């Protein structure tokens, strides 16, 4: 059965290419970039194959070494991680295409190890997503985390400190997570998710399981930067190289959100996470706080990337809010928002990187006249920003719509207010930029007699950077227009049936 091997290849190809890049790059530096692209492209094809197989033949199970679970390690791909895989590998591919010029400018002497680690990061994230074994998640989580620490640390001046804080927080998160595994293991004796979901219901009142669940939740919350455990996130996103921000922001937190869904609703039965302990309720309130706090903090920033980072915190709030609402509409909105937000944030960070590349700055107050200089870049920025605000027909609107529906279904009026207010706050901080970018530079005032403006020459990004940005922006719109198709064919089945 060849189709099953896609599930493995999607991880192994980037992983092996990471070794190959490191080796080959030693002799031929130019080879890194095409090799990376090729690996990610194969990965992307595999993800499509996987999703296709999942849709046509159902869940894929792959047993490593032929050892049947729970003794061996198993890869399980169903609708939930099937669509995550496509998203991850696609964004990784697009960002990789973009990366060439930006990296050559920002860290020219480190291209070889950069690409190698880039691939390891992608492999790690994909590995977390495909696996059906709790401990295997931890291993790949560490691969991804170490890669992320390094990718952040090579950024500009504040980066090493940001990376160090990230290491400390990230390690706490990861350790809590594998301590959680220990707590679950000690009372069940298994590490396989499917096996555990069978074993755990008898132990739902066991204190070890309760604490284990709490440890999972806190650990993942730290890793995904959920408010108020987000302290590592803004600095890391701000000081990291542009490409790093553009790959970590849309992917890492989303994978953690996926893991949260997986643990809440697959490893544990929804009835445990929702009814037995009030964890989902607590999470919704925490998330609501994160949405408001993130949005307000974003307004206070003048650094584009830092603003985007705070906006990420707010958006993680959306995703967790949807998970916490724990009904069909809410979770649909949440999963859709994972997808949409990955595209929007990807676009925004690519644009931020593009501005950085061309102008060498990202201070919002200096953006005047950018639309003339880089019309396409600012056009894509506008599209993504509108999506963040939630203007139809972009994707962001629909995920918000489902989240609102979910809040209505849960009869949680406070959250509806939070969602609506936050989209206004989003409007405040994004329109501030759009306004700046579309206005003329302040030096030449407007005059009724047709005062002449200083001519700003068009100076667009090189195509290798522009096209990926455009692709992601187009994705933002397409995801919005075809959201019903995505829900009807994929997300509908990814939501637990008991909802």
């Amino acid at each position, binding site marked *: 059965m060849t189709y099953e091997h896609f599930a493995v290849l999607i991880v192994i190809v980037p992983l092996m290419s*990471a070794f190959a890049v490191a080796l080959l790059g030693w002799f031929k530096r130019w080879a890194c970039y095409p090799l990376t692209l090729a690996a990610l492209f194969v990965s992307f094809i595999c993800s499509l194959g996987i999703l296709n197989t999942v849709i046509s033949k159902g869940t894929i199970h792959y047993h490593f070494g032929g*050892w049947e679970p729970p*003794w061996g*390690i198993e890869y399980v791909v169903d609708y939930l991680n099937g669509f995550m895989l496509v998203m991850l590998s696609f964004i990784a591919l697009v960002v990789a295409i973009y990366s060439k010029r930006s990296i050559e400018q920002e860290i020219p*002497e480190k291209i070889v190890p950069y690409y190698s*680690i880039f691939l390891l990061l992608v492999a790690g994230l994909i590995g977390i997503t495909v696996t059906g074994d709790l401990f295997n998640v931890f291993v790949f989580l560490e691969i991804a985390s170490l890669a992320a620490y390094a990718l952040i640390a090579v950024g500009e001046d504040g980066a090493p400190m940001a990376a160090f804080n990230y290491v400390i927080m990230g390690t706490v998160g990861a350790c809590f997570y594998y301590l959680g595994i220990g707590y679950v293991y000690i009372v*069940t004796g298994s590490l396989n998710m499917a096996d555990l979901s069978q074993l755990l219901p008898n132990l739902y009142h066991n204190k070890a399981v309760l604490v284990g669940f709490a440890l999972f939740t806190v650990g993942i919350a730290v890793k995904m930067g959920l408010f108020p455990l987000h302290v590592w996130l803004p600095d890391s996103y701000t000081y990291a190289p542009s490409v790093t921000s553009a790959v970590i922001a849309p992917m890492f937190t989303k994978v953690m959100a996926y893991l949260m869904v997986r643990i809440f609703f697959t490893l544990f039965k929804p009835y445990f996470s929702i009814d037995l302990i009030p964890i989902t309720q607590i999470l919704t309130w925490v998330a609501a706080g994160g949405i408001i706090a993130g949005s307000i903090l974003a307004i206070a920033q003048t650094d584009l990337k830092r603003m985007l980072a705070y906006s990420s915190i707010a958006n993680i709030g959306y995703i967790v809010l949807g998970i916490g609402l724990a009904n069909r509409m809410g979770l649909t909105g949440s999963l859709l928002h994972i997808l949409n937000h990955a595209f929007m944030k990807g676009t925004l960070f690519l644009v931020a990187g593009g501005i950085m590349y061309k102008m060498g700055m990202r201070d919002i107050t200096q953006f005047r006249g950018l639309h003339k200089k880089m019309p396409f870049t600012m056009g894509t920025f506008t599209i993504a920003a509108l999506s963040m605000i939630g203007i139809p027909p972009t994707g962001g609107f629909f995920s918000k719509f489902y989240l609102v529906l979910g809040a209505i279904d849960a009869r949680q009026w406070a959250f509806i207010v939070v969602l609506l207010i936050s989209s206004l706050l989003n409007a405040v901080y994004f329109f501030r930029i759009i306004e700046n970018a579309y206005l003329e530079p302040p030096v030449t005032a407007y005059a009724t007699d047709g005062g002449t403006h200083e001519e700003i020459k068009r100076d667009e990004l090189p195509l290798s950077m522009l096209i990926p940005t455009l692709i992601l922006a187009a994705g933002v719109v397409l995801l919005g227009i075809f959201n019903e198709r995505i829900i009807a064919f994929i997300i509908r089945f990814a939501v637990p049936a008991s909802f």
Partner: protein
Amino acid sequence: MKVFALLTVIITGVMLVYGAEDFPKWGDPNQPGSVHVAPRYTQGTYIEAGTPNIVTSVVADYRGYDTMGETTVIFTAGMACILMLRKKKRGEGESNV
């Protein structure tokens, strides 16, 4: 900061102690962790994996994929150090890892 740290630590500690209440006693041979998956490894190690050392057979065979991940972690750490610390070559000088 100190107070905050102490508070966090105490809360975590209380939570962990609370969870430990339902743990099996130390060294209990029949604790759930030892009776569900592990016996197969003990009994099958030589027949299925060909070595009397159970840890070896689990590391390298039953859960060999984890071990591959583990080596990748080391590789990642190595590459990370190269990425972070390698300086531009000064003339003919060796790279400074």
